[in-house]
């Protein structure tokens, strides 16, 4: 199926709303940076970032997990990939949050203001690279050509916005809500603590069960018959990933259950087809390394309050969740 029309608030040409064949050409510019080989090579950096963040999490005390721990990780990784210096990472995160959370009354900055601030910031990074190219994604995109032409200023900007938002909110949502799923299924959490080799299949189950991105809109290019209904050519279709991921015709009687050993697990959390998530290898790596490091330090995690969600229809992440962590080593002293 082809693409949704670009949002009216953002008239820029976005990769996720571009049709083939130009879509493939645009996407290939950055897909090189996201191949399994490139992503595997990032594992030591990802692990170092995860460790440095987890070092601030102490067992036995109440702490805020979504903003205080999880949110710090994906934004650092994607900002690093883009070429933003470390001292800007927290500011980056505030803008990224605001640019997707405009429907949330507690997000102070409007999405347009955040978008403007990010654009000005990207402009600075680009200006620095006009003189000296580096080996980050911004430099790669500045040198890139599609059909013999460089990217337009708008295309370059929209790429950077998309990479930041897509690389940040989604992964953080997966990790935070994946943790909530583990807390709500203590027997699964115990199983994972005892056998960390289950972490990769557990991540797939989190992707299925959580479905971090709720939907995407596409337009039918031809009539399609689906379960007795006809989707007409030209009609808009909202693809609800969460519903697909609980389809009992695919996942059977256990479709509603959280099962970290589920295999096979043909979920659609990353979408499918021409527009399947470009960053899926990176998301899997970040989530795997996070839970490897987290569960090696903490074997118990409990909620001490409500899980507050972002009021966003597309990526309704966790705004705050307070938890108490328990570690096997210090458990006796804590309790």
């Amino acid at each position, binding site marked *: 199926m082809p693409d949704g029309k670009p949002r009216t608030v953002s008239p820029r040409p976005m990769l996720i709303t571009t049709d083939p064949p130009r879509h493939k050409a645009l996407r290939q510019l950055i897909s090189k940076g996201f191949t399994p080989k490139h992503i595997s090579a990032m594992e030591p950096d990802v692990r170092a970032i995860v460790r440095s963040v987890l070092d601030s999490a102490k067992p036995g005390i109440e702490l805020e997990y979504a903003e205080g721990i999880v949110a710090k990780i994906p934004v650092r990784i994607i900002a690093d990939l883009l070429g933003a210096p470390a001292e800007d990472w927290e500011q980056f995160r505030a803008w990224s949050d605001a640019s997707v959370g405009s429907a949330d009354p507690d997000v102070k900055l409007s999405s347009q203001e955040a978008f403007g601030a990010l654009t000005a910031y990207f402009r600075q990074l680009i200006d620095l690279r006009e003189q000296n190219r580096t080996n980050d994604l911004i430099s790669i995109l500045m040198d890139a050509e599609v059909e013999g032409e460089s990217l337009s200023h708008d295309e370059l900007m929209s790429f950077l916005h998309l990479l930041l938002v897509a690389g940040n909110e989604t992964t953080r949502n997966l990790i935070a809500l994946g943790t909530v799923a583990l807390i709500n299924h203590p027997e699964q959490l115990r199983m994972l603590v005892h056998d960390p080799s289950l972490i990769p299949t557990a991540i797939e189950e989190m992707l299925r069960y959580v479905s971090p991105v709720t939907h995407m809109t596409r337009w039918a290019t031809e009539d399609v018959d689906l379960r007795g209904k006809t989707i007409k050519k030209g009609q808009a279709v909202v693809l609800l990933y969460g519903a697909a991921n609980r389809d009992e015709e695919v996942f059977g009687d256990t479709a509603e259950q959280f099962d970290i050993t589920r295999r096979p697990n*043909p979920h659609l959390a990353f979408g499918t087809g021409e527009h399947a998530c470009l960053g899926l290898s990176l998301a899997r790596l970040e989530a795997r390394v996070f839970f490897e490091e987290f569960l090696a330090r903490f074997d118990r995690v409990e909620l001490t309050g409500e899980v507050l969600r972002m009021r966003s229809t597309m990526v309704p992440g966790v705004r705050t969740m307070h938890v108490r962590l328990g570690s096997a080593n210090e458990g006796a002293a804590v309790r």
Partner: protein
Amino acid sequence: MKIVMDRAKCTGIGICEALAPTIFEVDDNGELVVLSAEVPEDAQNEVTEAVEGCPTMALRLQS
């Protein structure tokens, strides 16, 4: 069994490489390289998973 790749459909996302790294590799230009068109006995399962897991249906098996 042989692997047949449709380059027009492939977007170089590398899910196949993640599932069967000895058979598939996305090169530095973002193009998929099939390292072994003939599927080795001991890699049948992961190649089948890779073919089925391709989001753009760019891969198929031919006996």
